[in-house]
């Protein structure tokens, strides 16, 4: 029989989990075990500061960062940049999307830059108001056209939403997220909740 080497951390975690499971088998309340388990969740993602694009070329990192920031800005709550969304989009394009979608994204980003050129200023040189107008215009046109494959601006939008609303700040500041809900209640008034629960 093969024996898997386990790190001390893994052994400790295993012991904690074993105890949690045992507790639950007994009479101790679920929230007590929940507290034990939550202590074991993985550490936060590394800080945004320095990431080297794996996929973005030329101006793409800058363009995508501006778009993500415009779609989900920091307001009274965190925004896309607080959740490292540009790095998320870069890794999605690098690792998840197939080569045809990657090419489509590169070409689409270049087209977006060309189309948003105004008064001799490239998109990245425009002020925030002009950039916001350009992004809104591109979004409205893309939504109206309803084309496949999805245009660059909608790919960037979808990934911004996905990256932000699967991030810690995106979830915890906007939804009632419980790692361990402990029970399911099928039909309750929404008005009793402060925020919507985390929908799968």
């Amino acid at each position: 029989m093969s024996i898997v080497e386990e790190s001390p951390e893994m052994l400790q975690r295993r012991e904690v989990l074993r105890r949690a499971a045992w507790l639950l088998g007994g009479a101790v309340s679920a929230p007590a075990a929940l507290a034990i388990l939550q202590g074991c969740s993985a550490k936060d993602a590394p800080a945004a500061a320095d990431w080297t694009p794996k996929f973005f070329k030329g101006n793409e990192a800058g363009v995508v960062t501006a778009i993500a920031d415009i779609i989900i800005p920091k307001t009274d709550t965190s925004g896309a940049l607080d959740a490292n969304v540009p790095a998320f989009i870069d890794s999605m394009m690098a690792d998840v999307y197939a080569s045809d979608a990657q090419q489509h994204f590169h070409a689409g980003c270049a087209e977006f830059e060309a189309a948003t050129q105004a008064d001799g200023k490239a998109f990245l040189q425009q002020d925030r108001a002009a950039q916001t107008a350009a992004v809104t215009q591109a979004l409205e046109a893309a939504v109206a056209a309803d084309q496949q494959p999805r245009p660059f601006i909608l790919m960037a939008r979808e990934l911004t939403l996905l990256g932000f609303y699967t991030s810690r700040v995106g979830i915890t500041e906007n939804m009632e997220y419980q790692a361990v809900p402990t029970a399911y209640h099928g039909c309750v008034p929404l008005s009793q909740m402060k925020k919507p629960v985390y929908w799968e």
Partner: protein
Amino acid sequence: METNSFDAIVVGSGMSGGWAAKELTEKGLKTLVLERGRMVRHPDYPTATKDPWDLPHGNRITQETRERKPVQSRTGYPSPANTHWFVDDLENPYVEEQPFDWLRGYHVGGRSIMWARQSYRLSPLDFEGNAKEGWAIPWPVSYEEIAPWYDKAEIFAGISGSKEGLAQLPDGHFLPPHDLNCVEMEFKQRIAEKMGRKLIIGRCANLTAPLTHNESPQRGTCQARNLCIRGCPFGGYFSSVSATLPSAERTGNMTLKSDQIVYEIIYDNEKGKATGVRVIDANTGKQSDYSARVIFMCASAIGSAYIMLNSVSSRFPNGFGNDSGELGHNIMDHNKPGNSSAQVEGHMDEAYTGRRPNGFYIPRYQNVGKDKRDYLRGFGYQGRAQRTNFARFNNSALIGDELKRAVREAGPWTIGMTAFGEILPYHENHMRLDRDRKDKHGLPMLVVNAVVRENERKMEKDMTTDAAEMLEAAGYKNVTVRSDNFNVGNSIHEMGTARMGTDPKKSVLNKFNQVHACKNVFVTDGSFMVSSACQNPSLTYMAFTARAANHAVEELKKGNL
């Protein structure tokens, strides 16, 4: 010195193997459980407590995984949260003469870790269908014979559900049912009133309340996380890792060995019995023999039939116990050719809390009572209603604070359902071995050729149109029917490769899952199924395995094996 000799050998540690191990060890048999994959121990599941932000790539499957696991990933099941439970297809190839989705996990617990936990009894209608319609061969077991074993399986595993009094879906011993949500309750009422159809909450192997026995102290109640596929550190759902194998281990009678690929059953001509199994170590390639008085094949319908086809001798030149020529034939699954969904207006101030690891179920109503169709058998639906999340703004021009506020509002409701249809057994749907081509262990290549045929095609029309009719009758909008190109195997209910029957000329196993021609070998995974019914089959495998193991112990005591 370590012994290679046991009272019993169980090949496979999944849904069926776990039950065989538990029953045999509890009856005092020194039992060796052989698993071809790696070790997994409850409650060590590597991703079980990860939050959404702990998972890479928004939990979307990467191109690298797609390249390593083209079959597993084409089905949509694997994600970064669970891909470690699915095999590397490049290392575990097989030949698809027709597309065949073989979803597998090579690890202790097998697919009992990833299963969808839906647990239904087959009914008298299902056990009698073949005989009444003259299709294939009759089941050698009646509902009444297996019912006490369903009781045993349900009580030990812990199945939640509601008693409904339906002849085509017998009630059992249930823990409290999950709630239907507000929209599902409305849908239930409307299709009952307008169409006389019954919708019930799914019956699932999640503990909605503590177990009614004290045999599984390692298990706690379901915490409504709905992350079951990752493995549950609470033991909130039934798997062999969380439930049956710990029971077997506590007897002190189990030896569990991982990374051991059984490739042959050893047959002794003089004794007229199987004496053991041959094994290759998955990591070292070392070959060993293990011997036992009784052998339980629980390696899955494809896996067990593979080992039996590969076990040739002068007595069994066409594969172990294959006097009938049916070994490897009659592959069935459940036909799942599409999905129907709709948008639900209103109910905006209604919600649910917690994440339910279960959905609703619409039991088969076709060819039940007066509802006659132009095909044999029928189908059931599984589905759910839910509120939509942030992704509803993927195609929208809303930005900024306005967007953030809109996402914070609960989205409108949607409802969707998928039909699972019975597939008849056809001799032509088969698997075989290509001895000219070898895998990395030097074992023959598996070839599979199975398709849905005329009866299934006729049924498919009703599977989609009935769903659309019900959604429309309930008043829901934008009813959408999506047709999928179904590959056999995609429902992960493959079965029938060593069917049971009373006639040894037409079947491989007898009514106690014993190989007709070699009574100390039992096959108790999906291989034994004579027809597929349309219900999820795991509970039936549990019941038949428990019954077979108890029969084996009795026969050993009587000196019959």
